[in-house]
């Protein structure tokens, strides 16, 4: 499909998808920030507690971020969000097991973020297709099943997942902005999202 499009059309399509992706990422970041507040409050955690890196979640920070190609960026993002999708699904399941329907608001917020993460992952797949490279196969397993954790450890792990997701939302905005810039693998995004 991409081959059938004219280059200019591909560029326009990429820009459009990048713009929409940026909105999704920014909305996701906003929702994750709200979710973090609810999560810390409902789980009885200290917002300033430090959490170790969550296993199976790629780190948002990258040493040579500016040197990455567009495709690489998309692949990293896709891998991260697929992992988040699995982790959030686990968190939602754990939350239901722990609280049942007693805390429906937290469950709804988690589900909404999960839905957005899923939607963003599909959005990234669409962008990858546009880059003439199909998305990698989704094994569906995601990160390895975590060892049996205590309730507190589950809470801390959940906090770590959400914090990392918030970081990835910011990085995704920057990646997509980079992708939208002109040039192979990187176009000039409209100045609209420059602020972020």
């Amino acid at each position, binding site marked *: 499909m991409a081959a059938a499009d004219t280059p200019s059309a591909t560029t326009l399509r990429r820009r459009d998808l990048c713009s929409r992706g940026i909105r999704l990422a920014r909305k996701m970041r906003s*929702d994750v920030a709200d979710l973090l507040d609810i999560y810390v409050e409902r789980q009885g955690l200290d917002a300033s507690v430090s959490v170790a890196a969550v296993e199976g979640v790629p780190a948002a920070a990258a040493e040579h971020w500016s040197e990455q190609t567009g495709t690489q960026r998309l692949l990293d993002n896709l891998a991260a969000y697929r992992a988040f999708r699995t982790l959030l699904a686990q968190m939602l399941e754990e939350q239901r097991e722990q609280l049942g329907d007693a805390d429906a608001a937290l469950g709804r917020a988690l*589900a909404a973020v999960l*839905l*957005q993460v899923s*939607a963003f992952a599909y959005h990234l797949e669409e962008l990858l297709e546009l880059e003439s490279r199909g998305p990698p196969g989704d094994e569906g397993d995601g990160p390895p099943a975590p060892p049996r954790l205590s309730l507190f450890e589950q809470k801390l792990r959940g906090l770590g997942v959400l914090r990392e997701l918030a970081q990835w939302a910011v990085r995704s905005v920057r990646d997509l902005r980079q992708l939208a810039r002109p040039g192979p693998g990187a176009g000039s995004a409209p100045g609209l999202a420059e602020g972020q």
Partner: protein
Amino acid sequence: MFSCWIWMFILLCGSSVADENSIRDADIFPSSPEIERGSTLKLFCVLGKHYTPQRNASHIIWKLNRELIAQENYNIVNETVSSVIIHNFTYNKAHVKCFIKYLGKEQLLVHTEVKSGFPPDTPGNISCIYYFNVELTCNWTSGRETNLTTIYTLYRKIKNKQGLIMPDSELSSCRSKTESCSFRHPNTPFSNSFCFQVKAQNVLGEASSECVPIAMENIEKFEPPEILSIKKVAGIKQLLTVTWKIPEDIIPAQYLNCQVRYRNLYSNSSEIDTVAVTSEEKVVSLNLTGLWDSTEYSVDVRCIGVESKFWSEWSREKTASTEEKAPSEKVDLWRIIEFSHPAGNRSVHLIWKLLSNIPPPGRILGYKIQYFPENNAALQMTNITANKKIVLPLNEEAYIISVTAYNSAGSSPAAILRIPSTDEKPPEIIETVRTYTTNEEMIVEWISSEPEVTEYVVEWYEELETDPFIRSWQYISNSTKWKANKKIFKPFVCYNMSVYPLYGNKVAAPYSIQAYVQEKEPSEGPVADTDVLGKNEVVIKWEEISKDKRNGFITNYTIFYKPEGGKELNEMVNSDVLHHRLTSLQANTQYTVHIMASNRAGGTSGEPKTFKTLKFNKEDIIFIAIPVGLSMFFLLGLWITCILKKHTFKKVCWPDIPNPAGSVAVEWPLDAPMNNSFLKGVTYEDKTVGLEDVSVLEDCFPEEDHEGLLLMNCEKHVSECTDSNVNGVQNISEHKITLLNGNKKILYNEEHEVAKCLSPSMPYVITGEDFRSQMHSALIPAKKIQPIEMLEDDLRETQQISVKNEKSDNEEALKLEDFSEKTLFNPYLRNSVKTREFLISENLPEHSKNEPKKQPTVLPAFQQNAVGQSYITLDIVGLATAH
């Protein structure tokens, strides 16, 4: 068929359980069923255990609403269960009732509501609207009304290349019984990959729509922006700067379009400017240019995402005014001159208004009024006012007046008027004025004798309005016709309309008329009154109805009059006539009259007035009075004649009766009074009673009414006895003699018998110990009637009886003698009849009871006379004389 067997099985199980445990009378299965329209309904009724064995399922009857279902549709399942089948059930909703009929009585056991409907259609026309961070609401159409409880489920799915993904059935769907459903925050994720599907489901089936992809950017609607300020920029005219804030809850990183609508409040015209902004700009400003000076504008703003199809609502309005400039037009000035002061002084009422110039003159701070005598500009006076009116006290000179309006930016050109001097006589230029109306307009048209006059002022005000400031006017140029919208005039109100020609700065004499823009019948009618009432005519008069109730020009009055029980007649007179003579009326007849005042719109009658025509008019009275007067005159003459010829007539009709005292037929004993034992007896009796006790008789008399009646009868008898001869008198004497020897009662009665034969014209004697005065009156004639032998004998006897007391009574007797002598001068005692009535005294019976033994021999005759008091009138004397 299979389902029926299942129902049978359930019922059998259920009925057995019910028989054992239930305390209900009966049960019905299935309960509240919903079936497809036109299908067959089958229901079972289970009879309670306590009904058996007296009653069983064969006693069950079924009704659909209130109609009995035919027996052929019943089926007895077992002893306690009956079923019914209803084919082609087409009711939207109906009640099927199970009764038991036993011994002719129907008893309701149980009933259930049955609904019929249709399976759901496939939902369509799915549309959603996305209130960012608030809710996501989708609507759809459900197609044909199912008439059954239908549940709609809205699914939010992710659609990608691989197909549809149902992320979480619970959190990505919402259920509703209507054609709308919403996801609430925070379950309002943002994605471009969502599609929306609606599934409709009821007992008859389900239907799902396609999953319709809807991009969230396309359906976003956010809160209206907030206007922060509207400012004018100092030194820059015709410009306003609007600043507003973009709402925070908005899809990030998108382009927006905002519309700024600004409305000129002076002209009420609106314009819209559109400006492109981004969602990242929290505050946006826009300069509105090309505005009017000194004009207030109302501004509001709305925004939309460039990809959305839903505008936000308009923001709250804010208003601001542009920079002012000096009014460019002079005011519209007019005057009303009041010549009410002596010595030429007058009040000039100035009124003005702002011309509707464009752009408007801004906020006027005040008005400056300058005026000076035409011949002496040095005497200029200045007044400042914020009102649009002023009263100037001017003298008789001509004045020049100018008025200017000013605002913060300056003053308007001056409007100038000349007030003529009091001795000026303005020329009459207008020949005639007429007014008429069309559907929409009031038109005033006039003819001028001076074609060079091209400017006029039309002035109008309500006829009853006395305040000169409440007047309207308009300058007319190059036309002799003025048109105005009817709406500026009140209907049914009379307006004074004047046309003033203007030449130079002078005002010529006006021409005034009155006009109504619309008329209706008067609010009330005139009150009729009558005047100059006659036998066959009457003058009806009335007063004009007040101006505020005329509602139009009165064109005529109609007088309606109707005799009692007769036909109503009417006569019409002009509006300037306020009285009318009605002729040819019936004499002595009651009429009802009422007046109707009419204008062009109709008439209204006043209160009716009733009057009655006279029986006679003046001529009749004259004709009657003349004969009566003549008759009276004749009678008067006759009477005078009678007076003058009285003696003649008297001699003819009432000849003189000779005085018995002068009679020579009998010689009256001159010493009778001295020796009159009768009087002595009286005095003797008076010793015990007292002379002053005369009044006692008056008290006694009413108690002896029957005696009074007897006396009255006596009078009659007297008249009958008038013709008695001297023998009658002798009979009296005989009676008295008898009475002297009789008992009291007999005496009493006999006295009356005697009285019967005594009449005013007959000599009779009344004596009594309590009646001296009467006795005096009676004694005199008695003394004179000496010729009557009977009485004389009686008196002799009395004298003899009373000899023993003679000495002791001498003094009193002498007194009585004197008294008797005096009464001799009144021999006629016609009025003694009255006195005679008093003879019946209550003392008499007492006297009879108490003193019968003491006085029978002392004063028998007086005892007798005390009752039948004997006295003699001249009548009888006359008669006696005659005899």
